[in-house]
């Protein structure tokens, strides 16, 4: 858990939110029932070798204060070996597959928020070679996150600021945070077409890929993402490129170099 910055705030050395393991991480279901066995088969593969692994930490609030924005943080930096990809699924969501993160040259660490339709577990399955290491967090939610229209949709001027990208690198900690103004409509609300981000890439100064994200409907409106970069990359220039399902492209550039704005 060395990658967390919670203790930078006064009093933050006694964190309120700790990663759960075992039954507590998935709502106390001892029978491996519900959607997870199906998701495992569909997304990890029928014969996939998997195990619940406390080394992959998933942080989440116990209860969703706002089902449209439920924040998570996945920290797989304690896993032994190079993580090829992290697949994020939500047990009870009309869109089970929330995202796939290929950390590449970034660390296997990702912060994001999703919409929640009903209480349940979010699972992070990290693949190292042929083995899946699974962490989870269970969130109580009243629901409606996926089936309600975006807040932006109700505004006649929603296109103002659409696609705006804000980002910053903290070279001393390796953090990169990015926020994109996007309605992230799922298509489930009456008369509102699906409109959401489908991919995001981090590229280095030479245009080579650092990390990649496949994104799906559950990602929150105006999403913010948190990445962790190794020292060399965090002190250089990073281009962020994203695309949505309607073909819009988004682009921005940040730098962690000394003297950079």
């Amino acid at each position, binding site marked *: 858990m060395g990658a967390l910055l919670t203790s930078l705030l006064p009093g933050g050395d006694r964190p309120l939110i700790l990663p759960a393991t075992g039954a507590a991480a998935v709502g106390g279901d001892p029978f491996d029932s519900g959607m997870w066995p199906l998701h495992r088969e569909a997304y990890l593969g029928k014969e996939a070798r998997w195990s619940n692994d406390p080394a992959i930490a998933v942080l989440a609030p116990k209860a969703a204060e706002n089902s449209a924005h439920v924040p998570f943080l996945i920290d797989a930096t304690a896993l032994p070996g190079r993580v090829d990809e992290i697949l994020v699924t939500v047990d009870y969501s009309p869109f089970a597959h929330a995202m796939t993160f290929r950390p590449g040259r970034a660390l296997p660490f990702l912060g994001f928020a999703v919409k929640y339709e009903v209480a349940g577990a979010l699972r992070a399955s990290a693949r190292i070679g042929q083995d899946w290491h699974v962490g989870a967090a269970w969130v109580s939610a009243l629901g409606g996150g996926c089936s309600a229209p975006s807040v932006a949709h109700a505004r006649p001027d929603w296109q103002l600021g659409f696609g705006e990208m804000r980002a910053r690198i903290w070279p001393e900690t390796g953090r990169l945070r990015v926020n994109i103004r996007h309605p992230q409509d799922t298509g489930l609300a009456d008369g509102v077409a699906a409109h959401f981000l489908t991919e995001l890439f981090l590229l280095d100064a030479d245009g080579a890929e650092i990390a990649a994200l496949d994104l799906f409907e559950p990602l929150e409106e105006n999403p913010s993402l948190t990445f962790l970069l190794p020292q060399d990359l965090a002190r250089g220039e990073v281009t962020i490129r994203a695309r949505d399902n309607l073909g819009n492209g988004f*682009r921005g550039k940040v730098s962690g170099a000394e003297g950079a704005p």
Partner: protein
Amino acid sequence: MSPISLHRRDALVGMAAAALTPTTAGLSTFGLGATFAPVPARAKTRRYDLRPVEVAAGVWMIEGAREVFAPANGGAIVNIVLLETRQGAVVIDTGSTLGMGAEIRAFADDRLGGVATVVNTHHHPDHWFGNGAFADRQIVALPQTAAACAQYGQDFAASLYAILGPWMSGTSPLPASGTTEAGEARIGGRALRLLALSGHTQADLAILDQDSGTLIAGDLLFLDRAPSLPDADYGIWLKALDRLAQLQPSGTVPGHGGFHRSSAALAQTRAYLEATRARLTQAADLGLAPIEAMSAGPAPAFAALGANPEEYLRSVIHRWADHETEALPLVGGL
């Protein structure tokens, strides 16, 4: 800052885990050898046993628990004030449920000669979900409050039924039918000064009872209970506190917390807003993800306030975007 942001996806509380998780505690009665007690055909009527206290001449206060909504408190977490007049009571806020409103009404009918009028200070449901017990009386609020009650009433009801369960029996949202505005009012011989402010929500009514000099502050003031920030605008709220500071009341009833004759709630609410704003600004500026800011908990000086850390956790969810926009520079777009 965002407009009123609560909608049906909001749970109102950092709570719901406890309220929504089924437990098996009640089942032990049916173990081997247990004697079966007669099971009542209907749930026992829940009563709040509200205890109005006369805090100043003709000013009756019912003090709420310094907690968030929970099954154990039935939503009796808010302060209610009844002002005695020759035409009956001016009822300021009506509580979280029909049952709570009915107990307030019964006190006004039995002891204060009935109800002259009902005032809702703002649109948060603990302040007006008891309106149903006053359906035959005039109920007024600021125009934006009445509109927000109409807009969000059903969503609040869904959340509160999920949290409070049977306490909510019979409750349905009844927004104020009439509007009021800033200025002087005289009701049943009692002189009131109404102040139309905002900051806690988009419309917050504070009332100065001229006869006793008591300020009924609504949720612009909290004492020993963490302020609730989901619809807050720090800057506007702080300006509203400046206005309240000029009133020099003889005593103050905050929206949550005890009656007092000092400026304690004013000072504490101001300090809490400033400290929480500074904490979240610092968190965003250090590159924390929102879940890390939540995990760090409230500013240590305010960690022990009633309703914390729940209120702080809600604050991070609802206010984070404001702080993040400040911390992250614009780097690109379409």
